[in-house]
């Protein structure tokens, strides 16, 4: 059976250090305003009791990628392992993929005048290395999972600020933080 690779982001572990975001930006030498991965703070009422939580998101390598269907030049392909790859050689910079993606993943490179997005570092994966964000996270909060092989027990496919997954069926899953224990003094 073909693979279905996707990110598994452990929000319980993430401390919002942005190492994933910056290491990716640095590795791919992205322009100042560009990011392939972003870390954002989540509302503190995420799990019932107040928690400070962060989520790291990149391309969700969706099962039904809206970018692929919107692109007029066919610059997007979905590999057998599920990774959605953008071929910058073909891109004409119409920016339609950025509009169509519910997660605003493809961003415009103002120097190349073409779109750009996370490729799950497939060139690294192909030679047995981990994607940069996975490798550089000091908390090991990001993993690559073959969702056809493994279904994480406590993985969820939606968190606040994340668009409705029924639109493009993103592969990314998240592990939510455990609710804190509230204790009350009896008197």
């Amino acid at each position, binding site marked *: 059976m073909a693979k279905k690779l996707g990110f598994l982001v452990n929000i319980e572990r993430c401390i919002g250090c942005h190492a994933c975001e910056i290491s990716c930006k640095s590795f791919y030498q992205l322009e100042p305003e560009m990011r392939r991965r972003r870390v954002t703070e989540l509302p503190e009422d995420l799990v019932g009791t107040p928690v400070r939580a962060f989520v790291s998101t990149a391309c969700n390598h969706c099962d039904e990628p*809206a970018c*692929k*269907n*919107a*692109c*007029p*030049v*066919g610059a997007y392909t979905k590999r057998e392992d599920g990774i959605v790859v953008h071929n910058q050689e*073909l*891109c*004409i*910079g*119409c*920016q*339609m993929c950025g*509009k*169509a*993606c*519910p*997660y*605003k993943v493809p961003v*415009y490179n103002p120097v*190349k*005048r*073409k779109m750009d997005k996370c490729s799950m570092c497939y060139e690294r994966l192909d030679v047995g290395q981990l994607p940069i964000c996975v490798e550089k996270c000091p908390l090991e909060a990001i993993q690559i999972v073959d969702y056809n092989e493994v279904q994480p027990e406590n993985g969820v496919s939606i968190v606040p600020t994340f*668009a*409705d997954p029924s*639109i493009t069926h993103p592969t990314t899953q998240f592990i939510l933080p455990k609710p804190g224990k509230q204790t009350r003094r009896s008197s």
Partner: protein
Amino acid sequence: MHDMPLVIFTVLSQLAIGGFVTLWWIDQKSTIQRKTGLLISLSLVVIGGIAVLVSLFHLGHPFAAYRAILNIKVSWLSREVTFYGAFVGLSMLYSWFWIKDAASWRGMTGAVATILGILAIFSSAKIYMIPAIPAWNSMTTMFMFFLTSILLGPLFVGVFLIIRGELSMNLTAVVIVGFIAATVVMLVYFSGLQGGLPQAAESLRLAVGQLIFWVRLFTFIIAFAILAITAIGKQKQTGTIYTVVFVLILISEFLARLQFYETAVHL
């Protein structure tokens, strides 16, 4: 203002298609002198060509625009480019048949170009009917795009025909029906935004907060009033009335389209 080329492209291309279909239809049903028909069709070709040129400016790589037809199997943008490109090509051929005064060829070419033009507007609307932008993701986008064509096209052709004293069909009735339909669609659109997802309601809030929203409404109402009052009073339509109404509607549609792009809020 990144989307300005798209504002100009969509309005002008819809004007060109609406005008072309009107000209072809009148040519089938009655007689238009060769000089008049040629003048109108060449004007439409120029407008259609300008629309294509302007649209290139929203691309990072305009000289690679020809590649935009590669993904026709799934991409509505590819389909729009293909259909509209074919439409402009055929409308040039149609003008050539005006030069040659070949009525039957004109009829056939015009019929195919009409179908391509309709497909181009349909594809154009489908590009924007995407869940990622709730304000765009409804049938009102489709209706709005076609109504731009129905309002502007007949008025454009009507101005030429009235000035040359050759208006033999009741274009005013067509435009008034277009006005009524546009009013209904506008109301459905605004109430849909208000009652839709938070991003759709935010689009409406942004739109209403801009002065151009009110200028758009004002020009639309005044144009409607001028045409309706003169039609009810059985006043003979003049070139001046049609020109004023056309210019007001062109401004109104341009501003509405500008807001369509500028106030789009992503999920």
